[in-house]
């Protein structure tokens, strides 16, 4: 589904190399986790895949179901089925959460040549999904992420994911800033979306999230490359011994 080959990325403003040849394939139905120390390039990978400005791809490719992601606008990538759950969801004063969700859903449907969702159908759907994520009516009415707690912001990301039903979900440190209960709620939301047709790339520092979202494959990223790949046991190894051992081993 998601195929990243030899991806090299520089930071535009600083002329600094961040990704130095990332190779990664996520198949449909699988959950891949990327772990790694600070500054290893995990978040950069998520931004480059979703199309944020400020990065220059100097080599390599990234495709989603064979479509070249890197030449698409962010909105085209979203319509193609890519979703990034932001590490820091952006506050947008003045734009209601519902308006935002509905505009996004219908824009994606339009881009795919599908019919737009009626107001009534949308409302029914959003209420149903919000309920399972314990998002109340007030949160839906408020401006996007404005005044939301850290946990509410992350739940709101998962709500968007549940509504948009993307093919490929990237979760960028979705566990950061969450307490245990909130993490469980978010993980339940993600698990509910796991199915044979959908791939996940879960970026995290800690093994804790992976107790709740069980990965099929775990990658360790360091200095802009994936240096080790293994099963769920690799995450436990990081938890117990830190990154130093693994990094020393591959060095």
């Amino acid at each position, binding site marked *: 589904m998601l195929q990243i080959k030899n991806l090299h990325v520089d930071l535009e403003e600083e002329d600094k190399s961040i990704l130095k040849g990332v190779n990664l394939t996520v198949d449909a139905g699988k959950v891949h986790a990327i772990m790694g120390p600070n500054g290893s390039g995990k978040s950069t990978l998520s931004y480059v895949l979703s199309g944020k*400005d400020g990065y220059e791809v100097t080599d390599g490719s990234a495709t989603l179901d064979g479509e070249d992601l890197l030449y698409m*606008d962010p909105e085209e990538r979203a319509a193609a089925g890519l979703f990034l759950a932001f590490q820091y969801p952006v506050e947008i004063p003045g734009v209601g959460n519902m308006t*935002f969700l509905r*505009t996004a859903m219908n824009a994606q449907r339009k881009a795919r040549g599908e019919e737009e969702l009626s107001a009534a159908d949308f409302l029914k759907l959003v209420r149903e999904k919000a309920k399972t994520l314990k998002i109340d009516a007030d949160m839906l009415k408020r401006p996007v992420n404005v005044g939301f707690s850290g946990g509410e912001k992350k739940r709101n990301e998962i709500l968007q994911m549940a509504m948009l039903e993307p093919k490929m979900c990237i979760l960028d440190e979705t566990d950061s800033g969450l307490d245990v209960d909130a993490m469980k709620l978010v993980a339940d939301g993600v698990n509910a979306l796991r199915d044979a047709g959908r791939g996940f790339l879960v970026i995290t520092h800690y093994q804790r999230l992976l107790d709740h979202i069980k990965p099929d494959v775990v990658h360790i990223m360091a200095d802009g490359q994936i240096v080790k790949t293994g099963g769920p046991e690799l995450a436990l190894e990081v938890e117990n011994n830190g990154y130093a051992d693994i990094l020393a081993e591959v060095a």
Partner: protein
Amino acid sequence: MALPEAKQTATEARLASLEMPGGAGWINALREDALTRLRAVGLPHARDEYWKYTRPDTLVQANAPKAALFAGDDSERFGGVDRLKLVFVDGVFDPDESDDLNLEGVKIERLAEASQTDIHWAKDLYGALEMRGQTPVARPMATLNTAMATDGVLIHATGHVSKPIHLVYHHNSETSDAILHHTIKLDAGADLTILESGPAAARFNKVMEVDIADTAAFHHVRKQGRDHERQAVTHIFARLGAESTFKSFTLTANGVMTRNECVIELTGDDAVAHVAGACVGDGDFHHDDTVFVTHDAERCESRQVFKKVLRNGATGVFQGKILVKEGAQKTDGYQISQSLLLDGDSQFLAKPELEIYADDVVCSHGSTSGAIDEDGLFYLRARGIPQNIATDLLTLAFLAEAVEEVEDEVLREDIVSRLADWLERRRG
């Protein structure tokens, strides 16, 4: 001090193009008085400090610059609101298009007719608030209006006015030059909503004086029309009694020259005055909001909220002042003026001022100028919203604080849809 010759010449040239309307003794006296006052200060000149950001030339020159009529499809403004319509075409009252003037809780008359009667309540109000508004800053365009206005409405609200009075200003002649003067009086406890819409004329000079007695409430929502080439200089002069309310909102889309002045005097304790505006402008659009709020009583609240969206070299101006007089304790004054510059060619010129002579007050003011928030834009796009639609969403969100000053939901939605339409027509 003698008037500079250039000013005197320009003033006389303008006056020579006008004829003072006839009327009963009381109004003639008020007009003559205004004419004398005008000749003492002269019409605005580009070198006047108060006109530093807006060149008054086209507003002052003897004849109106030609303004093409708006040719596009345009639905009726405030069409969804049950209201009493009074229609002016190029500044001339159109009785056939207007509704019957009878409405419960209010007496409505035309200035052109009322000014023929020997005794009228308006003799104590016509030009009176305009004159009070001349200090500390002269507003000669309003004085010219008091002297020369050919028509307008006199509205006396005595109680609850069951529906809004809508002043509709059509523009049918490319060279029309209209001067209208409205005088509005609200008795204690009365409440009234005035709607205004339309470009009015190639050049429009309008004054609205609003005298709001204790506990009365005045609401005003205006849309200045889509004709781009028209010129407008408008003044609102409001005086507020104790526990009274004044709320005014203006939407301006298009217009090569608009100067909207709003002069508010809070004279009774616990009064509330809000004045807000949202404007969207393109190219040679020039829009100036000049506001002067005087607190002269205790525990009054005033809010000024102005938002401007500018693109393709458009210019926005804000001059706003809060003057808190000695003794006006517990004043709560707020002023915000912000512009969203959609490209590097547009400019926003702001002069926020506070002048405070009381020691127990809360006053704040802020003025900013910025571009679309890139992080917000990326977030929306990452959810599949195309860039142009995402930009419009963020633009409407930027305007929201001003639009939310419109309390009535139907009117507010009407304004929002106008803004959305304007943005959609310009979508890249």
